[in-house]
């Protein structure tokens, strides 16, 4: 029985991954910013599977409580085997680019808090010489586009950070999994018109579960995004800068 902490556990994608681990009988420590949501997620899982679930209310922006959170999780579950960092926001690009304080806030949520949590996890697992750190980044971090570059840059920062962290942690037998979902049909994207490229949270959640079990370095979810992003990255900058993407 493994012990897994999920940060941003009330997100539609993380819930799906949590259910699969619960089905396997793993113990879960679920963190999100609203206790009512966490209770709903916990009840949903426990009415399906027999396992142990702890819930913990915390805002990712409370940086100085990050260490305390890990101490609490390790104490409650009696150790940790894996961490999934899944929280995030999708800001409105136009509104955000016009307001400096919003840019900083988005970076703090989608990049700084993620790096902070992953760093604490890394220091713990490095000593243990085993473990798994999985983080939801995004295909948006692969190349900056005018329609979404603040979110994209924050995710790009996470992706680059995880590359370096993976390089460091491999020597300690710890896997670092970068998850790059494309567009997913969740409350976060409810306001966007849907296209056939949108994936269901269940599909992405299962992809994360599998990637964490196998310790895969980078998982594009669904897999076709690897090809799409390969093509987008191949476009020369002098052409790309004139495109409306």
């Amino acid at each position, binding site marked *: 029985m493994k012990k897994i902490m999920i940060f941003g556990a009330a997100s539609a994608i993380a819930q799906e991954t949590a259910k699969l681990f619960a089905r396997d009988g793993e113990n879960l420590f679920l963190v999100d910013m*609203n206790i*009512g*949501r966490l*209770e*709903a*997620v916990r*009840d*949903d899982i*426990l*009415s*399906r599977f027999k396992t142990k679930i702890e819930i913990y209310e915390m805002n990712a922006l409370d940086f100085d409580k990050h260490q305390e959170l890990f101490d609490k999780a390790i104490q409650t579950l009696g150790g940790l085997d894996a961490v999934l960092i899944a929280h995030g926001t999708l800001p409105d690009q136009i509104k955000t680019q016009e307001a400096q304080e919003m840019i900083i806030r988005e970076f703090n949520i989608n990049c700084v808090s993620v790096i902070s949590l992953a760093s604490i996890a890394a220091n713990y697992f490095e000593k243990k010489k085993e473990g798994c750190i999985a983080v939801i980044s995004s295909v948006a971090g692969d190349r900056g586009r005018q329609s979404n570059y603040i979110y994209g840059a924050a995710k790009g920062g996470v992706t680059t950070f995880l590359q370096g962290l993976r390089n460091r942690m491999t020597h300690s037998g710890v896997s670092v999994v970068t998850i790059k979902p494309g567009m997913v049909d969740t*409350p976060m994207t*409810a*306001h966007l*018109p849907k296209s056939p490229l949108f994936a269901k949270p269940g599909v992405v959640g299962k992809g994360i579960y599998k990637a964490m079990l196998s310790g895969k370095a980078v998982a594009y979810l669904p897999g076709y995004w690897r090809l799409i992003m390969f093509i987008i990255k191949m476009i020369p900058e002098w052409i790309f800068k004139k495109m409306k993407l």
Partner: protein
Amino acid sequence: MIIGDYESWGRYPKYKPNDVFSVYWRNEIPDLGKFPNKILPYAWGKSYGDSCLNENGILIDTKNLSKFISFDEENGLFRCEAGVTLASILDFFVPRGWFLSVTPGTKFISVAGAVANDVHGKNHHNSGSFGCHVTKFELVRSSGERLICSNEENTELFKATIGGLGLTGLITWVEFKLKPCPSAFFAMESEKFYNVDEFFDINDKSEKTFDYTVSWVDCTASGSSLGRGIYNRGNHAHPEEYEIPKLPNQKLKSFPFDAAFINSFSVNVFNMLYFNKQINRIEKNVVHYDPFFYPLDAVLHWNKAYGKQGFLQYQFVVPFGNEKDTIREILKQVSGSGMSSFLTVLKTFGDMKSPGMLSFPRPGVTMAIDFRMNGDKTLKFLESLDSIVRESGGVIYPAKDARMSAEDFQKFYPQWTEFEKYIDPAFSSSFWRRVTKKINN
């Protein structure tokens, strides 16, 4: 969200709401009294007519209230959020040996919708309607109250909400009984009948030994073949008695475009082929619950096969007495009209009473007939069927209706004035406004 997506299953009438508000968490229900227009809950849009529509009003989309809450294995008591589909309940529970106590002919409906329409299924003759198995639910009112309704608390609202067409408040969760099942399969028999009398003879003997019964009727047949069809009956298949096949691995197909694929030619051909497909008088099979209960669910959006103008389903129940003559008369009208129906279903209801104040099922014979919407011609024809139903003391099913007159509704459901007291003042629907219009004598 895209407002145009919020249509009813029959895609007639085409009423659009002014706005849609989605709820995601049962503890974060907005103040229902603050909306500028009348509101109506909406989940998967499987009501056929306008009972799930709210023209110029606001729809509260509950399909994201999709969580399970608890399961009491000892008593089979299951509690889940309003938007949970019967499909997701079956997916999870059938492999663990539990089945729905009552299910209608599609599994893509929400549990709150099952309550609000007090839906029925193939086992009505022994198990009643969905509402007979509901023990409790939570109702959020525009006053801000969150009421637990059951046989013990808020009893009147409990009765009004079952079959209450979503008008008494917002259901956030429902608790109801599941029943043990020995496998995902059913031991099914199909028996051909060649007229209405034969249907009733077969029905009398089948209902005694089969938990589930329903018949398909060839409504294109006339003369000496009038009322021919195939009687389907089944029981849960016990692994000790039957060889249980491997689980089918079927992928859902979706009807790809709006096309008036269903017309009188294709309907005639289909009905003829369907009746003659079965060579023996009686055939026996062990089938999975999907083809047994939900044959049409295999093609998502099959409603699009009727084309953009949509279709109407005419479902009524007539009390026992002169039911044979009534069914014959209706079939005569339908086969003679040339507006033949793709699927016509015939079934008898039992006498188990639902707590629902405005519920449709009652002892008698029910029949559901699909008609392609062909403007006034279709509407006129259905009015002629109304008079037969009216004269035989029957009623029409609100969940399927898009056109019955206010006069008929108020005669069919005289308890509507009593029911009206329990409607939440912030709630309304296109259906309700239509059928409660003042009648000028």
